[in-house]
């Protein structure tokens, strides 16, 4: 296998540990006077977008930021719960940059780029420093120093957190840095604006077409460079833990204008989400992975007990310890409940498919805190000098600890399910959460279109085939605060002679016209079915055939079904109202139109990858014990797809492991 000449990752020469340090010190610079005349467009205001926009504006660039929400603070990074990893080794438990690097490559099932991941691990500590300096209120110990907790796929405690609201606190930190620059006039903010196309001139990305979601007006914006920080595409499944508005449109439009899309089939199904309750459901809610620190996952050992629980005849609290199957602890004794997400999700599916599910639909397992609540309670009783406490006292003290650690999550669970998780084990089931695939980027985070960058979840680069918990926040902020401010110089230092291009340039006019035509086409279908009808149908196809388990036959059928659904959409979708006014249905329709194309590519990619790795599990390729069976000889590559109008061409980037010995991933 050799790497396609179209995919030069521009990895710096030298030993792994020095690549970034050396590159950082040699990448061309732009002098302060020139920065003032260079304009950068940032699309998306989550962790990657806000961090990049604030940092670039601080450096002196002219920055414009676009988000579809009413405020940049609402981007879906806000909903990340559990924490952010950093190789600080504050716990003195053997952590190091190398270990974080190693865990991430292994967790990604050996499908990520070594150099990018090592850089991520190197800057992880700087992120925590920066956030604390901004006033992010991370959890602290009584001595005033920062607290850590464990996450899946690791055996050290390197996760920093703020209760179950870490994403919120980190985003508000980045948002405040962004607002500071807005207040100083260094950033122009465009809220309630959606990017609908990129504009390329002479082979370089030079701007975007955006729609003002209040007036419906299309706008043209020039930039010397454009940064897509637009998140992942999990909503292709309709039901996911993403926000309702999360979408692939920005990345997809870029894909259609030349940016290759990599590993689209790598999707993360998160093991601990609140199970689906009915057909009306619009989204799924995550219960943080941090809960697996203290919760034990189980189903009954006997099918008849599972059935009795399903029928409400047996209270799970009454099932004896020896009648419970703590299947993660049984199958993976070394990591237990803290195996990576893909492994935990498949194990839950396996138990439920075998008939051990515990809710009405048979698609749920228990996440039980009772044992650890009592353990905490006894520790607290000791601290308080209460000897021989009663069970009730222990339980109460333990509950107080759990309230402090996970209170908001327990409240959320109760609110959604109507069941009190302090008294009953939670019921959980896997749900779509994150997408490791995304736009192909080189070491500088530039896509295959010069001048167009992708940061955070929108790119493909750091998580391989499975992302470890608490690493999404790390990557978003690393890209925004500590990578792009350096790497963008490699490109912009050659653009200092490029004057701002007036937006009456032919390329802008054409791109706007094409966007307007697409909107007109959507408005003029005037069919009979609302957008959600199609989105739900697409989601079901994707979940059944391209979800937790895939096979060639199902994927082939899914491709046909998606094509048929797409035809039906363009013949029968109904969008009410007008295009020149606020019109949420029109916004949704545009996004679903893009999902209907992406879904097909995901299935093509999954079909192409004749192996199982990380979140991509092909039923044909598994070990006797049901674990993912990789094929390193034939598939140790990044699958990057070039859009050819009605089809795609595959380009491969070979993955070379020079520092890590590639092995079957074992958590036993």
């Amino acid at each position, binding site marked *: 296998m050799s790497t396609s000449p179209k995919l030069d990752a521009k990895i710096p020469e030298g030993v792994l540990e020095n690549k970034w340090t050396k590159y950082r010190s040699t990448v061309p610079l732009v002098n302060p006077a020139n920065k003032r005349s260079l304009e950068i467009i940032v699309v998306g205001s989550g962790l990657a977008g806000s*961090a990049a926009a604030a*940092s670039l504006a601080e450096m002196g660039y002219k920055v414009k930021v676009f988000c579809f*929400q*009413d*405020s*940049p*603070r*609402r981007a*879906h990074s806000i*909903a990340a719960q559990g924490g952010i990893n950093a190789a*600080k080794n504050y716990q003195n438990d053997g952590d190091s940059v190398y270990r974080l690097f190693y865990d991430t490559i292994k967790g990604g099932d050996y499908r990520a780029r070594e150099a990018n991941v090592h850089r991520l691990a190197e800057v992880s500590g700087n992120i*925590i*420093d*920066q*956030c604390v*300096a*901004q*006033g*992010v*209120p991370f959890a*602290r*110990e009584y001595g005033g120093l*920062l607290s850590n907790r464990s996450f899946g796929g690791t055996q050290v405690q390197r996760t920093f957190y*703020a*209760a179950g*609201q870490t994403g*919120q*606190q980190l985003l*508000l930190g980045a948002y*405040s*840095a962004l*607002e*500071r620059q*807005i*207040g100083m006039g260094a950033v122009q*903010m465009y809220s309630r604006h959606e990017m609908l196309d990129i504009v390329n001139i002479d082979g370089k990305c030079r701007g975007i077409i955006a729609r003002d979601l209040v007036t419906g007006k299309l706008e043209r914006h020039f930039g010397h460079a454009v940064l897509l920080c637009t998140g992942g595409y999990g909503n292709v499944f309709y039901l996911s*833990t993403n*926000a*309702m*508005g999360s979408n692939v449109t920005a990345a997809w439009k870029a894909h259609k204008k030349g940016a290759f899309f990599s590993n689209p089939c790598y999707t993360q199904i998160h093991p601990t989400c609140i199970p689906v*309750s*009915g057909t*009306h*459901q*619009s*989204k799924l*809610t*995550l219960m943080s992975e941090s809960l697996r620190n203290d919760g034990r996952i189980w189903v009954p050992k006997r099918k008849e007990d599972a059935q009795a629980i399903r029928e409400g005849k047996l209270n799970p609290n009454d099932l004896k310890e020896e009648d419970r199957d703590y299947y993660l602890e049984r199958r993976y004794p070394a990591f237990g409940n803290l195996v990576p997400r893909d492994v935990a999700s498949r194990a839950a599916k396996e138990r439920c498919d075998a008939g051990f599910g515990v809710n009405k639909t048979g698609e749920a397992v228990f996440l039980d805190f009772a044992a650890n609540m009592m353990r905490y309670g006894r520790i607290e009783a000791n601290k308080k000098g209460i000897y021989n406490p009663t069970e009730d006292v222990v339980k109460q003290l333990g509950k107080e600890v759990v309230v402090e650690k996970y209170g908001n999550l327990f409240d*959320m669970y109760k*609110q959604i399910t109507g069941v009190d998780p302090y008294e009953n084990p939670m019921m959980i089931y896997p749900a779509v959460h994150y997408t490791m695939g995304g736009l192909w980027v080189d070491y500088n985070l530039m896509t295959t279109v010069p001048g167009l960058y992708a940061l955070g979840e929108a790119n493909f680069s750091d998580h391989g085939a499975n992302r470890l918990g608490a690493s999404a926040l790390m990557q978003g902020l690393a890209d925004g605060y*500590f990578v792009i*401010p350096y790497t963008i110089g490699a490109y912009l230092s050659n653009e200092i002679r490029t004057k701002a291009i007036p937006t009456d340039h032919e390329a802008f006019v054409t791109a706007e016209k094409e966007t307007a035509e697409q909107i007109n086409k959507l408005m003029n279908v005037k069919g*009979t079915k*609302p957008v*959600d009808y199609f989105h739900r149908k697409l989601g079901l196809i994707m979940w059944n055939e391209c979800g937790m388990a895939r096979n060639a036959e199902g994927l082939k059928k899914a491709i046909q079904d998606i094509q048929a659904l797409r035809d039906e959409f363009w013949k029968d979708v*109904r969008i*009410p109202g007008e295009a020149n*006014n*606020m019109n949420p*249905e029109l916004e949704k329709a545009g996004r679903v139109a893009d999902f209907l194309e992406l879904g097909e590519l995901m299935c093509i990619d999954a079909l192409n990858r004749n192996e199982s790795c990380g979140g991509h599990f092909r039923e044909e390729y598994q070990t006797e014990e049901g674990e993912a069976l990789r094929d390193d000889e034939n598939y140790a590559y990044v699958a990057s797809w070039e859009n050819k109008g009605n089809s795609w061409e595959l380009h491969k980037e070979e993955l070379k492991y020079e520092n890590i010995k590639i092995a079957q991933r074992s958590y036993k």
Partner: protein
Amino acid sequence: MSGNMNITLKVWRQNKASDKGRFETYAIPNVSEDMSFLEMFDILNEQLIIEGKDPVAFDHDCREGICGMCSMFINGRPHGPLKGVTTCQLHMRSFKNGDTIVVEPWRAKAFPVIKDLVVDRSAFDRIIAAGGYISVNTGNAQDANSLPVAKENADHAFFAAACIGCGACVAACKNASAMLFTSAKISQLALLPQGAPERNTRALNMVAQHDAEGFGSCTNTGACEAECPKGISLSNIARMNREYLGAALMS
């Protein structure tokens, strides 16, 4: 559809800012008690689209109570009847079969209606831009553990920082004051050593921006605290007042 509740909705409809606006009544049959309030609106909108009518515009995004985008004024209360819950996490089991529910947008001069239940809350962003930050450029930070913070202060800073910026405090207040929102950010940063160098300008500038946006003043009624879905405490306003007075004396 799964449920057996019949709900009548009286919803504020207003095509654009300059329109007068009016209530319209809709019957929603077969509502399930497991449905969220917004999922009921999804069903209403699907119904309206199929009937060829204009669906109700409303703000929403994460639907898990953290982004702060949803904003309905339900039966006279922001985010509805439950304490500590946003509209997106309000479930229909909190209502009874046969109920009539009145739904309006946030009402405040500083939050003009854009369409139906959607209002413009950009005033909040401008208050933050006036000083709701610590001036530390990327790369300026020292090691995170070089600055110990007493756990109690860190915890209280976190409780204040938990504000989601939804604007329920403004909608609940008879003066449409945004003092709870403004004070939450001032408090968070006042409680941390990192916030100390700018505490005076921060308090003065943020309060000045609050007033310039047309929010009313605080008369200590406490409706904001009672209706805040994130339990932001009124004590933040007291702390803000101390910060502000201290700063005003210094200036």
